[in-house]
């Protein structure tokens, strides 16, 4: 698909047409000359795996373009075809401008050499001329904050220092088009943020970025447009939010969007009111299914009253993947006197919080009760629907609450005290 919005006459940064790529998977691979000599007539049988089928797209200059897909969907293969590491079996790829690939940081780093040699070597491999590589050495070291460790061999670097050096070299390559694989996003959260800051800066400078990832948070945050691949085929291309939704659908094997409430099914409660819809975010029509961590999270509950109800309370429970209630909230705390509702009245009850949930899938359960003991249930909404929290902070806890830490050294215990307190 070629963009309608593309200015006529302006060439795309990258264009692919009918790209096919298949891999041969030999059943029994003869890896030696001996076998070939002993069985000259045996044809090696092999299966063919279509890694990419009929992929066509174009990326406009200055666009931040995401390629998403599950493992084995062909997204990394596509990136390698774009980078010229794999040859396509059919189809054509064009690019306009200097292209640079970040599939892995520090390709060709030699642990036995010091920073200077490695920066030169890595820079040249990434496409710099030796003169450019030398000229940029100082700024590389400065960005990596490794001024004091220049003479150290790389094998004595910590892994963090290694990654910092590699990343600094990579961003010195002034390419017009950057192909970035998600494996780049290794390292701690601070480093990832630094990576993304740089990518954002490059985007603002008008460079074209093609970004392969699993992280729907990153896609919706950074990309102008995205493409979804599944089994080597393009499923959709377009708005990153829509692509993220489709991706989540595919990954979780079912529709994670909010179903239209099925009013016919038997439900708990007396039916004086019904939850007719639950949605995430401000815009009901958006059908968001992804909530970003550390950002405000709002769940809205649309309730339709079928008869007169006084002071109803709506409560929300967010269950995580293990069915553990992570958040429980009710409107009756702040809005005890929620008022009287007439028949056929419609109201929205909103629950807003700062999203401190751990990344994962959440399942909201909404209950409407009459005020009082809370047992007088009007409606309970538990159907199969959920949203996904994405974010970089995944400590392993159920929630990601910011924690301040402090260390106070109290000194060394007097020997008498140590002897006195053996039981303690």
């Amino acid at each position, binding site marked *: *698909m*070629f963009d309608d919005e593309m200015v006529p006459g302006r*060439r*795309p940064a990258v*264009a692919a*047409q*009918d790209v096919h790529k298949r*891999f041969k998977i030999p059943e029994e691979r003869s*890896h*030696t*000359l*001996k076998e*070939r000599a002993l069985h000259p007539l045996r044809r090696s049988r092999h299966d063919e795996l279509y890694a990419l089928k009929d992929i*066509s797209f*174009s990326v406009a200059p200055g666009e931040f373009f995401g390629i998403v897909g599950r493992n084995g969907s062909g997204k990394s293969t596509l990136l*390698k*075809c*774009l*980078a*010229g*590491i*794999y*040859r*396509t079996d059919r189809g*054509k*790829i*064009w*690019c*306009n401008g200097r*292209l640079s*690939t970040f*599939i*892995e940081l520090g*390709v*060709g780093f*030699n642990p*036995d*050499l010091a920073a200077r*040699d490695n920066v*030169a*070597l890595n820079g*040249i*491999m*990434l*496409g710099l*001329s*030796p003169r450019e590589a030398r000229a940029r050495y100082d700024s590389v070291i400065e960005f990596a904050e490794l001024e004091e460790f220049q003479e150290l061999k790389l094998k004595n670097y910590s892994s963090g220092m290694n990654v910092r050096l590699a990343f600094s070299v990579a961003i010195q390559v002034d390419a017009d088009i950057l192909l970035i694989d998600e494996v780049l996003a290794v390292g701690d959260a601070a480093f990832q943020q630094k990576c993304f800051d740089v990518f954002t800066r490059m985007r603002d400078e008008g460079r074209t970025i093609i970004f392969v990832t699993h992280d729907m948070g990153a896609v919706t945050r950074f990309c102008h447009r995205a493409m979804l691949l599944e089994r080597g085929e393009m499923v959709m291309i377009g708005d990153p939010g829509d692509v993220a939704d489709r991706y989540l659908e595919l990954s979780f094997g079912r529709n994670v969007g909010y179903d239209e409430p099925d009013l016919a099914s038997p439900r708990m409660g007396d039916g004086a009111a019904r939850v007719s819809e639950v949605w995430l975010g401000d815009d009901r029509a958006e059908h968001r299914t992804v909530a970003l961590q550390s950002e405000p999270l709002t769940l809205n509950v649309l309730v339709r009253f079928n008869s007169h109800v006084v002071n109803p309370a709506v409560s929300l429970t967010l269950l995580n993947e293990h069915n553990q209630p992570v958040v429980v909230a009710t409107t009756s705390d702040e809005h005890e006197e929620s008022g009287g509702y007439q028949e056929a009245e419609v109201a929205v009850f909103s629950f807003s919080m700062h999203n401190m949930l751990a990344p994962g899938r959440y399942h909201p359960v909404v209950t409407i009760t009459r005020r009082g003991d809370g047992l007088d249930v009007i409606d309970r909404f538990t159907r199969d629907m959920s949203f996904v929290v994405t974010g970089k902070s995944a400590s392993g806890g159920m929630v990601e609450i910011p924690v301040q830490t402090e260390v106070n050294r109290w000194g060394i215990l007097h020997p008498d005290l140590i002897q006195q307190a053996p039981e303690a």
Partner: protein
Amino acid sequence: MSTPRLSEPLGQPIRGPRALGESWPRFWQLTYNIARSEFKLKFFGSALGYLWQVMRPLLLFGVLYVFFVLVFHVDRAKGAAGHVYGAQLLGSIVLFTFFGEATGGAVRSVVDRESLVRKIQFPRLAIPASVTLLAAFNLALNLVVVMIFAVIAGVRPMWSWFELPLIIAMLALLASGVAMLLSALFVRFRDISPIWEVFSQILFYASPVILPAEAVRSELGHGHLDHILYHVYTLNPLVTIFQQFRHAMINGATLSAGQIMGSWLALLEPIALVVIIFVLGFWIFNREAPHIAEDL
């Protein structure tokens, strides 16, 4: 979502990996810098640094010298040039060391640099070429030792020393041809490595390293079969190259390459073979280059 057929290209086409790529400077820069960093590693990598690199041919020379000269008196064989036999032996060992390093080192080179091949786009040929270049750096240093040794042994400067670049160029052409061939084939056939080790050993003894070509010729006599055998022997381009080195660099009295072949015209045979090996090596490497990343 219909795809318009495009008659005009939308920019530079991306054709996938190739042996050489579009830009010669880039190929050369990569080759040179890979070789340079490897050289640096060897030079500064260990406590005794480059001494070991020079010691290897010297040690081999020592062993062969004791065995073949002091015990078996090969230096008195026909065409062995007596007093400067040692310098000829060392020179040939150094040349063969270059050939052995360039070809033996190339066998695994592409497979060993898998991460490079699979992760960045660059002219694939830079890998075996850098192995040959690294061997050439070593050769340059070793040749200095050889020439010092030769002068001490009584060799005086000759006009024919100017033939050295030609001799080295021929050897380098042969070595890089074999290097390309082996490194490309090893991706498919992993038993290339032991096969080449054995073959390399055979070449060592089938070249005028220990025995001068003239001695081989006189040993073989004049029968019909002997004649064919000798012809096969001289087909090995290393025979021509080493013999010419002994003649031009160490002792003018030693038969030249042309003389051992019978005529200068006959030299076209080994030269043609070198060219054929180089072209074949390049052709095979070039054919394999686009899918090396997938076959690894």
